[in-house]
């Protein structure tokens, strides 16, 4: 058991490390560094070449970019050119090692854009994203469970609702969000909700009621667009599983014992139908975080998704790496959570040696 837990914890961590390392090396290798941006025509015209070079060197030194990138580097051989590459070992004085050491100490470096520590920038934006994704997650689970339970046994309703779900499942999130904005937050159509952003002082207004209504006012459209995209898949999966369980013999036995169909549904069928549901659940949190990128850009919410999109557009690599790391960790967390839930839903899975998602 202990070995299984260790395996389940360490292996995903190893993947995470590998992935983040690859992205780190790629960003440092392939992308122009801020020192090249110093060489823009606007800056070049005011400074002499020597001054510019000195400034570039100082900036490189400050950002630690003057060190070699990795533990080894390869140069062409001085005499034979690239026919015989000569590798050089640098030891721990390289960018990757420094970055890893910083990471172990809990620091992700500073943003290229404004020089603020990445951890602070992320901590500023994460609460806003959680305000969006957590209600969306709870809403997805609650709504799809309710709809799934309502739909079993109602053939006529099932046909129409499932058809609608199949259709909605195909629509990309940005189309849903844009349509909602243009229909419900448009001075030329229905002007019910704000199209842009949330005020800074959203949670400083007095009174619980005003705060709640404010929150609903600004977050209703973003959360509903996330719900429209995630709920159909869940309903489809759950009703398919429930419909399968209805035909099982134990259902007939339970009905024959004299249980009401409500009791059979809630106490016998649901638990068996939950396994595929939990598998979907592992993907819910990452999917919502990815969806947050789109939704926050469209509704101009100051969350992590918009931060990432902006960092990608401006090539702010430290922020981007930090964000990717955080989201990958959220995914790990949901894996472990799902593992626990599998054990709760189906005791037979508690003793198996491999995690269910592998």
């Amino acid at each position: 058991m202990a070995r299984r837990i260790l395996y389940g914890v360490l292996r995903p961590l190893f993947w995470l490390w590998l992935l983040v390392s690859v992205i780190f090396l790629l960003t440092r290798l392939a992308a122009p560094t801020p020192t090249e941006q110093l060489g823009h025509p606007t800056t070049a015209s005011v400074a002499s070449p020597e001054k510019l070079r000195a400034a570039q060197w100082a900036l490189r030194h400050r950002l630690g970019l003057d060190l070699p990138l990795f533990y080894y580097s390869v140069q062409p051989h001085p005499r034979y050119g690239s026919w015989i590459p000569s590798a050089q070992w640098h030891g721990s004085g390289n960018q990757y090692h420094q970055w890893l050491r910083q990471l172990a100490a809990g620091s992700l470096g500073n943003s290229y854009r404004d020089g603020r520590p990445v951890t602070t920038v992320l901590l500023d934006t994460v609460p806003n994203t959680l305000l969006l994704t957590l209600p969306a997650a709870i809403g997805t689970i609650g709504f799809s469970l309710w709809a799934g339970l309502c739909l079993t046994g109602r053939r006529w309703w099932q046909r129409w609702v499932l058809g609608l779900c199949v259709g909605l499942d195909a629509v990309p999130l940005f189309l849903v969000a844009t349509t909602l904005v243009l229909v419900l937050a448009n001075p030329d159509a229905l002007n019910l909700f704000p199209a842009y952003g949330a005020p800074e002082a959203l949670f400083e207004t007095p009174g619980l009621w005003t705060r709640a209504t404010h929150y609903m006012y600004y977050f209703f459209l973003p959360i509903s667009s996330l719900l429209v995209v995630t709920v159909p898949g869940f309903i489809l999966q759950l009703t398919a599983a429930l419909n399968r369980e209805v035909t099982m013999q134990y259902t007939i036995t339970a009905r024959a014992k004299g249980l009401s169909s409500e009791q059979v549904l809630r106490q016998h069928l649901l638990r068996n139908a939950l396994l595929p549901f939990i598998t979907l659940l592992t993907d819910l949190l990452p999917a919502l975080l990815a969806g947050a990128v789109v939704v926050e850009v469209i509704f101009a919410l100051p969350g992590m998704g918009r931060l990432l999109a902006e960092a990608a557009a401006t090539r702010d690599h430290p922020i981007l790496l930090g964000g990717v790391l955080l989201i990958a960790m959220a995914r790990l967390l949901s894996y472990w959570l799902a593992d626990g839930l599998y054990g709760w839903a189906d005791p037979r899975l508690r003793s198996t040696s491999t995690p269910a998602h592998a």
Partner: protein
Amino acid sequence: MPKQPWYWWVALGWLGILLLLSLSAPFFPLPYQPGQTDVYAIISPPGASPGHELGTDALGRDVLTELLFGARTLLQVSLPATLLLTVVATLLGTSAGYWGNNRWYLPRATGVAALYGLVICLLYLPLTGQEEKVVLPWGLWLLLMPLLKLLVGKTRWGQVRKPAPLDTWILTLAALLSSVPRLILLVGLAAVLPLSPVSAVLVLGLLFWPGMMRLIRAEMRRIRALPYIEAAQALGLTEPQILVRHAAPALKGLVLSSFLLYLALVIALETTLSFLGIGLPAEHASWGHLLAAARLAPEAWWVVLFPGGCLLLTLLSIRVLAGSQKNKAGSHLK
């Protein structure tokens, strides 16, 4: 062929029209080019100004032109990317499913040669960014691999055959790629290498195979255990024969239906990226670019309705075809 419902024909018809229109887009007498702005007709409603049959968006681009050339982008980027993804996923999925962890025996000599090749690649990869020509020496050094295999293969140690854990390797790679949500991975990569039509195909095709690979691998494992494959092995057929003549026909339906599902996924992903402004360059027409412009002028319903409707119809049509394909494969198995 079983009788298809009416919406199947509608879906097929729409995709056919889309294909025809996008193929013939450059031959239409369109007065404007994709990406060209007409400053005299900004946000003009459909039919209001001559030459703009479907109106213009907030930047003065002709909606009809952008629609037609955006459909070409589907054909140039999304379709090749999905084809590449399907090929990669099918190759990896069938090999992981068929050979598993302990059925692919290799002599140690091959392992030694592969290790040598890996070292050469690790040495030459950092060199690629530098000025000198590296491809020729790199290739020549790699040519020594077969020689090495031959030499080591002469020894008794090199002739011992060991199983290669193919399944574990492929699954590890898949787990690595899918540890971050697709969109986030793309956003991260877009900062490193700006997407062009060619690099978009490569990135989408080489990064998003894990999901389909898992499906094909599971199906291949099921097929491998069936008696007729065992019979084929007992008859002494070679592995390529078994895979191509006996396993591939059984896999075909699954590959086709998951190809269609992933096509819808890739189209959605490509338009999303373009919508966010980190996908294809702005002068390359895409329905996502057009929809992004809709935010600038909320009153221009035609900028949302036409590209949004086209996107929705396309995705739904692909879903419908995929669904009927899946049903066919399912009924065939019963």
